[in-house]
């Protein structure tokens, strides 16, 4: 479904990604880990359409992926994913309104009733039915992310992109969110790409883990080489030593201090 052929991303002399060659089938759940600035978010933005490749190809169903965001690819950011001036219900109904052609993006009459019903259903599913008329600033971080996910799902995307969606949440709430996202992934038959800082999260969630890291290092010019995918592993078939190996490679500074 998604295919990258010798994909590179440069900002001037600064190479962020190099030689990305991957294939992703429909309904995979891919988690991406790596140190800060390793290009995993850049790769996600290329899938989203807000960044374009410097060279190489990124294909969706054999066609170059659109260079602007569209309804086939849903997104949940770490924050700012919901509209602050709409209530929870209005936020989700807006997703429905935006799918109809029209200048204003408002719904009227029977379309509005239907959208309200559909929005209430999906909010029930993510566990927000008690907060339909609250504004986002009245919600906790976890509830905001539930809302953002509900909003994204109502647009019926094929691909769901998650950019560190649970990074700012407490560990207990994070576990609830993991369960939620796994259930929704199965039910809605989604292909999921998720960027995370948390290697444990990467090992637990999904079907496939990508580790972004630099293969080549030039100490004199740290930006001369970009990162590529150094591990591409099926989740669930890994032993502890491999986990440790990846964990060490992700935190070189800490390892040096300990040794």
């Amino acid at each position, binding site marked *: 479904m998604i295919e990258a052929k010798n994909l590179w991303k440069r900002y001037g002399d600064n190479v962020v990604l190099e030689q990305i060659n991957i294939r992703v089938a429909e309904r995979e759940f891919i988690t991406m880990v790596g140190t800060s600035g390793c290009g995993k978010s850049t790769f996600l933005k290329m899938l989203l359409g807000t960044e374009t490749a410097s060279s190489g190809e990124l294909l969706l169903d054999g066609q170059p992926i659109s260079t602007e965001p*569209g309804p086939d690819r*849903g997104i949940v*950011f770490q924050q*700012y994913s919901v509209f602050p*001036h709409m209530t929870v219900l209005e936020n989700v109904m807006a997703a429905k309104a935006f799918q109809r052609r029209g200048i204003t*993006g*408002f719904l009227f009459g029977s379309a509005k009733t239907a959208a309200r019903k559909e929005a209430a259903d999906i909010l029930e599913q993510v566990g927000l039915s008690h907060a339909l008329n609250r*504004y986002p*600033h*009245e919600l906790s971080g976890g509830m905001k992310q539930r809302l953002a996910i509900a909003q994204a799902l109502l647009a019926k995307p094929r691909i769901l992109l998650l950019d560190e969606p649970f990074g700012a949440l407490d560990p207990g709430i994070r576990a609830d969110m993991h369960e939620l996202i796994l259930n929704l992934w199965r039910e809605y038959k989604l292909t999921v790409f998720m960027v995370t800082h948390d290697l444990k999260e990467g090992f637990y969630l999904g079907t496939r883990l990508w580790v972004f890291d630099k293969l080549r290092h030039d100490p004199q010019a740290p930006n001369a080489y970009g990162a590529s995918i150094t591990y591409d592993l099926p989740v669930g078939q890994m032993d502890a030593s491999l986990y440790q190996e990846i964990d060490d490679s992700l935190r070189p500074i800490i390892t040096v201090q300990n040794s």
Partner: protein
Amino acid sequence: MKRLINLTPSPVLSAVLALLPFVLILLVYVAASDVRLEANPNDKLLPSFSQIGDTLHRMAFEPSKRTGEYLFWQDTASSLSRLGMGVLIAASLGLLLGIFTGALPLVNSGVSPLLTVVSLVPPLALLPILFIVFGLGELSKVMLVAIGITPVIARDIQRRTMEIPAEQLVKAQTLGASTPQILIRVLLPQLLPKLIDAVRLSLGAGWLFLIAAEAIASTDGLGYRIFLVRRYMSMDVILPYVAWITLLAFFFDVVLGWVSRKLFPWHAQGGSQ
């Protein structure tokens, strides 16, 4: 003893401290007025409160001998309609310019440099041109107010538009929104409370331009009146008029703040992000 920066007044003390300067100014005025009137009962510089009251009563509740109008209310109505028209034009134009330059990079490239230059032109220097082009009637005064504050509002709304997190615009696009839908449903509602803030801040400048225009060419209005009676040193008219203008300005500020809180509760409660 706590540090000075940590000393906060109790509510009562706070109220007393707030009233104190007003009371002091009044006392100083009354004392100075008494001294001067005792020396010369015809002194015009610091009229007593009873003189001011008599004049105000004559202007507000007795028809003018010359025109039969109640001058105080006539002046107030004229000035407020000019200010209102000017501010309304400036707010509409400023909102449109701001939202389009802030949201659409193509429009921004074409319009922003011009907007920057125009906002640097001192509006009062344009007044003679307005009088020449629009004549001495109402239009030139309204235009001065509008021209004076439109660039301020436009640039403020432009910056506010750009401050809205890009994530929201991306999100709306992934939900299938078109450009007009994003402008109308995502950006516009978030900018309306910012527009009210911008109008509140620019009302002071609006009064300035209004009074300047009325002082130069007008036949009624609050600004016209105080500049007219200056020739006779009628402080008994000027002082209450200045107080009245201040009161009106304060009133509009309070009303706009209230409207903003009522219409945009999410904004007032700090939900702008």
